């Protein structure tokens, strides 16, 4: 019997492995999807799902993304779209952290919420969604609140953390844990027609600068709510920051904050 590698090379077309061949390898060799994906990439082949990532992302880039772990804290409005983007771009390991279940009022914006998932865990919904769109991605669900105490364990081995939370106190706890652990943190938040994005690198206290001196745990979203397209837009910025951090490409929002006003179509880049 051929080895997995020989099987893949024999079935590759112009260096590309189709999803049906990958699924066949999973069945015939009785291996999990992530193992087959790793072998494909190590063999210098490309899963066909990533064809439209090229030439923006090279085969080597795909391998770097596949080998990376990213923690997404919050699986609501921002988190749902972030997990979607990270899984589709090919991040190999995603930790999703959210203690909540879906409620009716999440349906206006949260990608993972459906009428059929009301009352169900947001973290588990992320697992199911990723399994359906990219089974080569391993998702670890955590149905607990992120705290300073469990943060070190939850973020272990993370190449980057993504702040998709909805309270200032928890965001600051996350930022402090990331600073202690030397993990880059991509922050995003929304409220009404408005949003903001920035990235805190190890040794920086960016989120403390943004939220210092707050007596309230909520911002303008408490009154203005959150809209679907703002979640989608800000999540897109955050996912892009994650990819740039992992691949060390382009410029990040280090030391800068984008303030986005879609009502008047203004995006301001502020030095922090």
């Amino acid at each position, binding site marked *: 019997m051929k080895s997995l590698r020989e099987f893949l090379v024999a079935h590759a077309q112009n260096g590309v492995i189709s999803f049906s061949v990958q699924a066949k390898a999973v069945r015939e060799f009785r291996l999990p999807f992530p193992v087959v994906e790793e072998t494909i990439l190590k063999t210098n082949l490309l899963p066909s799902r990533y064809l439209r990532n090229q030439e923006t992302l090279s085969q080597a880039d795909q391998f770097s993304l596949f080998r990376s772990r990213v923690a997404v804290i919050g699986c609501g409005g921002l988190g749902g779209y972030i997990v979607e983007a990270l899984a589709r771009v090919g991040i190999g390991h995603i930790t999703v952290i959210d203690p909540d279940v879906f409620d009716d009022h999440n349906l206006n914006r949260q990608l993972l919420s459906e009428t059929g998932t009301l009352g169900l865990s947001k973290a588990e919904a992320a697992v199911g969604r990723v399994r359906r769109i990219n089974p080569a991605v391993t998702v670890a669900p955590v149905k607990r609140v992120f705290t300073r105490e469990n943060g070190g364990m939850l973020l272990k081995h993370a190449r980057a953390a993504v702040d998709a939370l909805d309270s200032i106190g928890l965001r600051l706890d996350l930022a402090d844990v990331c600073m202690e652990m030397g993990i880059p943190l991509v922050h995003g938040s929304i409220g009404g027609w408005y949003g903001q994005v920035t990235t805190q690198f190890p040794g920086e206290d960016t989120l403390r600068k943004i939220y210092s001196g707050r007596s309230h745990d909520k911002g*303008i979203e408490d009154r203005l709510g959150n809209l679907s397209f703002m979640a989608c837009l800000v999540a897109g910025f955050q996912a892009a920051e994650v990819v740039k951090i992992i691949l060390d490409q382009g410029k990040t929002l280090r030391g800068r904050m984008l303030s986005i006003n879609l009502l008047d179509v203004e995006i301001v880049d502020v030095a922090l």
Partner: protein
Amino acid sequence: MKIELNLYASLARYIPREAGAPCNRIFEVGEGTTIIALLHHLQVPMDKVKLIFLNGLHAHGDEILSEGDRVGVFPPVAGG
């Protein structure tokens, strides 16, 4: 003296403007006016003010304005 004031995100509505007219961000202020006094004058609710920048640097709001100063003010945004 003239200063430039930018109110961002949900605070943009407190910049006085006539319907359909472009937003005028240049304000005439008196000697000794602080950033907070100017925001009070424009009826900006201070509990909606989070970040204040004066000429690109963090400010507390009690700074006295000078000719040509640029002020930027942001509300807290924390939804997800």
